[in-house]
Structure formats: C-alpha cells, structure tokens
C-alpha cells in the first residue's frame, strides 16, 4: 500500500510540474501581445450580444468563423456588409457571392456606428486576452487525475473473507488443542466454562427458553416481512443510463423548466422521454461543457473529458455532424432505461396531475434538480397514492361546471375545502379498471 501511495504521489508531482511549465510557456507568450484592452472589451461585449448567435471566432457556426476576418476583407467592405448586407448585395458582386455561404440571410445592423464595428473587428483580430494565472494556482487542463479506491463490494467481500478465515483458524486451533489433550486452563478456558455453565442453565429454564423462542420468531418475522414488502417496490431504483445525463446541471444549474423537455406531461398520460431533437435545441450550440464541470455518475466522478464524449453521443443519435454543422440523416434511437413504471393494472395520468391539479413534479419525483443520476424517489405504492389523495385539497376555484356538486360535497362533509378522497379519489374504479 505504502509504495503505491508513494508512486502515485510522485506521478502527481510530476504532472503538476509539467502543467506549471506549460502554463509559464503560455503566459510568456501572452505577455508578448500588446492589446488595447478597452477596445477589446467593448468589441467583445458587442460581439457576444449581436454576433455570437451565428458566429464564433475559431469555428464555423451558422455563419463563417470570424477570427482574423480583416485579413480577407477590406474594412469598408465589412462595414457596408454588417450595416445592411441585403442592400450591399445589390451593388457589390462579391457580397452577393458571400451571401451564398448559408441558407439563412444575415440580419441587418443599422444601429451600429462605425466605431462599434471597428471595435467588433478589433475583437475578431486580437481575440481573447489570456488570463495570467495567480501564483500558486495550478490548473490541470485536460488531465484526469483520479485516484480511485477499490469498489465497495470488493471491500465488503474481503472483510467477509477475513472474518471467515479468522473463524476457521480459531476452530482449527481449538480442535488441535483438544486433540493434544491440552488441559492447561488459562483465563480463556475459564471464561468458556462459565459460558457453558450459563448455557446449560438457560437450556434448563423453560421461561427463558420460551422468551428466547419468541424473540427469535419476532426478529425473523421482522426481516421476513421487511423483505416481502420490497417485492415489486422499486424505490431507489437507479439503472445505468446510456448517456450520463445530469438533471442537476440541466434543471438545477441552468434552471430549465421540467416541461421544456418533458413536454408531453401537460396533455398526455405519459410524461415522455424527450426525443433528441429537443436536446439539439440547445446542444446545436453547446458542444462541450464548461471548464470544471463535474458530475457523480455510477460511483465515479465525470469531468469535462468524459462529459464532452456524452454530448457527442447525443450528436451521434441525432445524426449531427459537429464539424460541418449539418444533419447527416443517420439517426439512432437512444435506449434510455425507464425508471418509473406503474404496473399496467393501475391507471395514472400525468396531465391530470400536472395541468389540472398543478402538482409540482418534485412532489412525486423528489429533488430531481439535485440529482446527477436519476433514481426513483417515491415508492409508487398504492398506499403512497392514497395518502396524498387524503391530504390534498382540491382547488375548486374557476371551475363553475362542478360548482354545485362541490358545494353539496362541502356541506355533506362539513368542511370548507374537500379533499381528493372526498371527491371520490379513493374509489377503486378511478385507477383500476
């Protein structure tokens, strides 16, 4: 164990010094640039707010990459193009040719002044200003330094093996000493004799015997029923999904509404798994995760390297070519594994709960926005359904159609607001038919 630890420490020291070295090389190169930071900042701000939806500096997006565009085009040509490219195309043949680049037309930006455009172009020329690392800060870029311990089951298995081996050795030793006829009575054998005498005493006492039997039966029943009650109840079920999709990142950190992706929950019995076109609504633009993103997946920590591969899986399924930015048409379904599944003899309708009752998704599915890996939060048993139906009051406002019935029910039960169970929410036929 010790040598392994030493070894890995050496490796990490080596790696760290290597990255430091690389870092210094970078920072020296960035010192050599002489950049007007105010103009760059102004240009960057404008670029991010107006241009970045279609252009990147280093990569093709909807429009061409714009890094160093001034090397290819005259400043005056670019100004005319940016201000109103449609008009400019009519008078300039080169512009008409340039418009063929994409199937969509570029917007006109008459609100930009010459100074604004110059700032934007300045930004496209100088690009990002590289940050100089503060002393002591070590950035480990692209390296996955993970020291992973043995998996849990192995540890348990080894512990069990050690216990069993210990017991076997003990019994062997005992046998050996018995065979030897060794009658040297130490403290231990005294204790054993005492225990034996105690055992004989207990055996002959009927009351204690009955008590012991009852105790054992109760313990047995506890474990037996505990086991039986988990039959068919998948609370905590957390299968390994084909793509490491983190709800925590999407709905927690990025605050995307549950129904953005699970859009069928509003009108349908099912809250469906979104098809990949919904993923592509955002991931067309987001091909990699932010630096330093981490999720816990199946007992491991997934960093940027792995997560970028997971996004590539979405592209693969959608048939999206991230280099050429076109759909190839070769689609593959993603084989997600269903977690929440009611038996078919129970009817449940999402739209009735989500749209009509306005129940929050989290009420049944738990704190999904905190889960990296999705699991079944609720037991989804009948008792669990009924508990909620007994407690929840029905919102009777804005439903004039049933106003009379609701009034009568409220009078009958002597309450102000009826619960779902009083509306018939416990009738068998509501869910089983």
């Amino acid at each position, binding site marked *: 164990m010790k040598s392994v630890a030493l070894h890995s420490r050496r490796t990490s020291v080596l790696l760290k010094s290597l990255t430091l070295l690389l870092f210094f090389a970078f920072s020296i190169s960035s010192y050599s640039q002489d950049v007007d930071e105010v103009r760059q900042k102004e240009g960057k701000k404008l670029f*991010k707010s107006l241009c970045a939806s279609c252009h990147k500096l280093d990569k093709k997006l909807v429009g061409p990459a714009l890094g160093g565009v001034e090397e290819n085009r005259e400043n005056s040509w670019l100004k005319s193009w940016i201000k109103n490219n449609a008009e400019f195309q009519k008078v300039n043949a080169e512009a008409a040719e340039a418009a063929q680049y994409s199937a969509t037309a570029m917007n006109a930006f008459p609100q930009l002044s010459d100074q604004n455009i110059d700032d934007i172009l300045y930004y496209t020329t100088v690009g990002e200003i590289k940050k100089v690392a503060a002393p002591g800060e070590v950035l480990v870029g692209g390296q996955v330094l993970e020291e992973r311990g043995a998996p849990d089951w192995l540890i348990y298995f080894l512990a069990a093996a050690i216990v069993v081996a210990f017991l076997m050795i003990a019994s062997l030793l005992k046998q050996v000493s018995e065979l030897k006829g060794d009658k040297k009575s130490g403290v231990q054998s005294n204790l054993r004799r005492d225990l034996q005498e105690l055992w004989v005493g207990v055996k002959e006492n009927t009351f204690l015997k009955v008590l012991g039997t009852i105790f054992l039966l109760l313990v047995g029943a506890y474990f037996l029923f505990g086991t039986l009650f988990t039959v068919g109840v998948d609370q905590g079920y957390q299968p390994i999904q084909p793509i490491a999709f983190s709800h925590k990142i999407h709905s927690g950190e*990025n605050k995307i509404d549950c129904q953005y992706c699970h859009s069928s929950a509003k009108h349908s019995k*099912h809250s469906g798994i979104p098809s990949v076109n919904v993923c592509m609504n955002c991931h067309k633009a987001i091909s990699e995760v932010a630096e330093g993103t981490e999720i816990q997946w199946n007992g491991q920590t997934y960093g940027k390297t792995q997560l970028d591969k997971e996004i590539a899986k979405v592209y693969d399924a959608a048939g999206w070519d991230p280099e050429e930015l076109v759909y190839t048409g070769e689609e593959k379904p993603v084989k997600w594994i269903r977690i929440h599944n009611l038996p078919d003899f129970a009817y449940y309708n999402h739209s009735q709960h989500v749209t009509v009752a306005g129940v929050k998704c989290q009420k049944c599915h738990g704190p999904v926005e905190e889960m990296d890996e999705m699991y079944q939060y609720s037991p989804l048993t009948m008792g669990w359904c009924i508990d909620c139906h007994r407690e929840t009051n029905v919102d009777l406002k804005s439903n004039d159609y049933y106003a009379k019935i609701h009034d009568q029910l409220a009078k009958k039960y002597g309450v102000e607001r009826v619960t779902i169970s009083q509306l018939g929410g416990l009738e068998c036929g509501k869910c089983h038919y």
Partner: protein
Amino acid sequence: MMKNFKLIIALVVFTSIISCNDKKTRQLQYMPDMYESIPYNADGAEGLGGEPVNSKPVAGTIPRGGAPAYDIPDTIEGYELAKTTLKSPLAKDEKNLDNGKEMYTIYCLSCHGKNGDGQGYLATSEKFAGIPNYKDRDLTEGSIYHVLIHGKNLMGSHSSQLTYKERWQIVQYVEVLRTDLLK
C-alpha cells in the same frame, strides 16, 4: 461443530439475501402477469410488429381536433411569405394571453428572458450568446410562428413541444412583450 458451521452458512445466506439491495436492478416482482399487459406501451421500443409506436402520423392525415400541417418551407422566401401572409386564428383575449405567458415561461424564458430582451438566465450566465432583443427585430405574428415551427439560426424548432394552439398563444404573448419593449 458441524451444527455451528451450518448455522454460519445459513446466516451468511440470509444476510446476503436481505442486504442484496442492488439499485441497478429492479426488485423481484410477484406474479407479474398483470404488471405487463398485452396492449403495447405508448412509448415502448417494440410496439406494433416490433416497430416503435411513437412515430410520425400517416402522411396527409390530421388528428381529430388537430390543425393542418404547416407547409411553408424553411427558406428565406418561406420566412418572408409567413411574415407577410400568415395570421393568427386565435382571438386576442385574456385567456389565450395567460396561457401564452405560461407557455412562454416554460419554453422561451430561459433564453429570451422575462421581458423578451434576450437576457434570460442562459444568456446572463453566458451559456448562450447573441440572443436578440425582440425590439431589435422586425417581427409579425406570422414570422414569430414560422420561427417557432422551424427555428432560426441557433434556435431549434419548438414545434414538437407545443400544440398548434399553444404556439399561437405564445405568438400573442411575444407580440405583447415586443410592444412593451418598443415603448
């Protein structure tokens, strides 16, 4: 000795059964005949004849209560056509506007922002850049609907997430937002 040994084995087996709470597999089901019924599941991988049933409707058909398919193509000319000719079939009333707001909150707000100024959470947290302010664009109800159906530039199509009516309700709400922004 042998008796003790048997007891130990029994205990080990028993504990391994009750502690066998593996999260990655489903629990045992008792008599699952009625758990899985004969009719296919609406979103099952093998539905009709081994094919997924979650597929496109038959070409040329309209679901009961549905609307005709949108047939203006996703081109520059199509955009112009929608912009000039397409009109909302819905009445401009409170009810439509309220639901439009609700739908906008779910499907548009993350990027376009509460007021439609392009300052949604995903824009301010710098996940997305360059989301336009509605007031900087020349929009009509037809062009908004066209973009909702086909998407534009980096915005994807949102037609699969919304119904015909909901799309037009969103259009109505976006127009209200834009009028407020232009004030």
